[in-house]
């Protein structure tokens, strides 16, 4: 075999090696990601993540999710309401994570009972303001900031409030642990006619409040 031929043989290894490497890359990656036995229960935190919790309006920040508006409980301000009734409560949301993102508040699916829908008559006014990471604004709104307030809707019908992250007003938040206090004021608005208001009797409306950071 000539020197030329030897070199040529050596060179022939190159395409094989290149293609092999490519195939290995694809096979290995695909196997790890797509095999049916891939364990997907454990969250992977290798590179970064975002965390979001809320205080449920409680006096101490413990990541509660209890509803702040408890209209189903007799004696609560949201129970047994009349036209024109109003109330304000606050809740604190904590974000943590390795990325800055946009925090948005949107409502969940509205459910309810009654001969007519109540949600269109529940007008919500929502303000958000950043608070210090150690500050906990509870449902009584003590400590809600007077500055840097972002209005997220004024007397917007609960049923018309954004229901997706994309539709909600984003609030830019930086990376790291920080908190945003939300002040939610609701009013039972009249339908405009006494007969219409009459039909609201006994109606209930229920919706989750969702926060999402992306």
């Amino acid at each position, binding site marked *: 075999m000539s020197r030329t031929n030897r070199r040529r043989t050596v060179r022939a290894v190159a395409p094989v090696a290149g293609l092999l490497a490519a*195939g290995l890359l694809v096979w290995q990656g695909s196997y790890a990601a797509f095999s049916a036995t891939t364990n997907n229960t454990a969250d992977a935190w290798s590179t970064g993540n975002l965390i979001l919790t809320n205080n449920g309006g409680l006096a101490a920040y413990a990541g509660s*999710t209890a509803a702040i508006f408890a209209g189903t409980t007799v004696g609560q301000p949201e129970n047994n309401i009349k036209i024109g009734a109003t109330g304000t409560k606050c809740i604190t949301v904590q974000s943590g994570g390795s990325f800055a993102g946009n925090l948005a508040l949107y409502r969940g699916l509205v459910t309810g009972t009654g001969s007519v829908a109540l949600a269109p008559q529940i007008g919500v006014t929502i303000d958000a303001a950043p608070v210090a990471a150690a500050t906990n604004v509870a449902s009584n709104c003590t400590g809600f900031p007077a500055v840097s307030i972002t209005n997220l809707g004024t007397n917007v019908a609960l049923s018309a409030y954004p229901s997706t992250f994309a539709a909600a007003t984003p609030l830019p938040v930086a990376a790291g642990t920080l908190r945003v206090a939300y002040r939610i004021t609701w009013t039972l608005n009249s339908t405009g006619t006494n007969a219409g208001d009459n039909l609201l009797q006994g109606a209930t409306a229920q919706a989750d409040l969702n926060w999402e950071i992306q």
Partner: protein
Amino acid sequence: MSTAAAALEPAPVPDAPAPYSRFRLTAGILGRTWLWFVAGCLVVTLVPILFGWRPFVIESGSMEPRINVGDVVLASPETDTAALLGRVTVFTDPGRPEQVKSHRIVAINPDGSMTSKGDANPTVDSMPVQVSDVRGLGRLLVGFVGLPLIWAQNGQWLYLLLFLLSMILAAQAMSRDHEDDIDSDPSDDDDTGDAQIVPLPQRLGGSTGSTIAATTPLDPGLSFRARTPRWVARSAYVGLLAAVLSIPTAGASFAATTKNAANAWAVGNWDYTSAITALGPYLYWKLDETGTTTTVAVDTSGNGRTGTYNPGATAASFTRGIAGALTTDSPNLAVTLTSATSCINTTSTTAVAAPAQLSEIVWFKSTSTTGGKILGFEQPRTGVAQAGSGGTYDRHIYMDGAGKVWFGVYNAGDSLISSSTALNDGAWHMAAGTLGTPGMKLYIDGTLVGTNPNTVGEATTGWWRAGCGNLAGWGDGWTGGNSPTTSSAPARNYPFTGSIDEVAIWTTVLSATQIRDLYIAK
């Protein structure tokens, strides 16, 4: 052939092999391996398109560590949710239809939609994925291939430049190496295996490509063969790169959610009866009595101011127990006045002073065109008497011949408010009159329809009655027939032809809100 291309491909020198160079050989092999590697990745990325699979470049890292930014996910069409469960799925982001997302399906919802989640996200995605959103099931992951696209998107031109430079250097190293080794027998092809990649240019190069591909193996290393139209191979390679750059991207966005669940509001089941009693009425006749000869109209105020159906013992005078005005009341009953003498009078024979502050509410239903007194404060207790001769009658709500409803108070003259519209439409209506410091007000169905500045009523004593009474002299503004005149009949009964329900009297002035809330609690 362009000058730049010429630089990459020095002309062959057939009869004078260049001096042997180990360095050139090593560099050439490395360059060739690199180019083949890249080409292999590109081919693997693009060939599945032939089978209907779709490639997506991953843009963000919420599927890390298994899927990284810049990886290409190849997804096959799949609409069976059971097959998607637990698998990485590419779908149109339900929240942002302009974006494609590559997350894992973690649950199938009862309605057939699916819940998705990024492996690196603490919570599931907020919006359910519909089957129609699914673009495909992740099948193959080609690492890094999409990075040039990501770099281009992010403006990381340096990385892009370095990558392109590495390709050029590799090509150059190969060319230099090849100069050492120009074979006298060009037909001895060391790269016959390349023919396996033939389908590729067919897809990418169009008609020309297919012709060439049939006869020419594609060497991604820009192989030298004098007879090969090298620009074709080169074009194919550039085409591959371009094809990869045109792969759509799929986000795998980082996200987290928190929920304040089940916030609820409940409107009171306003009960009219308890709403009335909560306002502390002076008397409250619900008129829920049944039976044909009942005489007692119970006072629900708790003050014991009962009324008397008069003449109660006569079955022809009243139809009791008809459907009342309150849809939420139980029992919801009312009474129809069925004779010209039917009346509901205060039972007590002791006259009381006419209240200075006053609210009176009555529900009525009528199709009458003769009008009549619905509710009022009157002397004597039963029957009628001429004004000035033992008869006083004001603070009354009455209907005129055209069906308009009036609220009249006597203060050295008639102070009047009327409804603007006729209410003798056969439906239940609520009339509420208030008198006192704020003046006079008349509400129909909970809405204020008129005011009068008069604040004082006739100073007298008497009794409350409903359904009958004297109206002589109260003809001011009267519309329709049966207008009451003092001169012709000073002591005449003007019975109300219709039904009455829920008579309530206060010795206070109720607010507009209180009266509205009463109405909407009906």
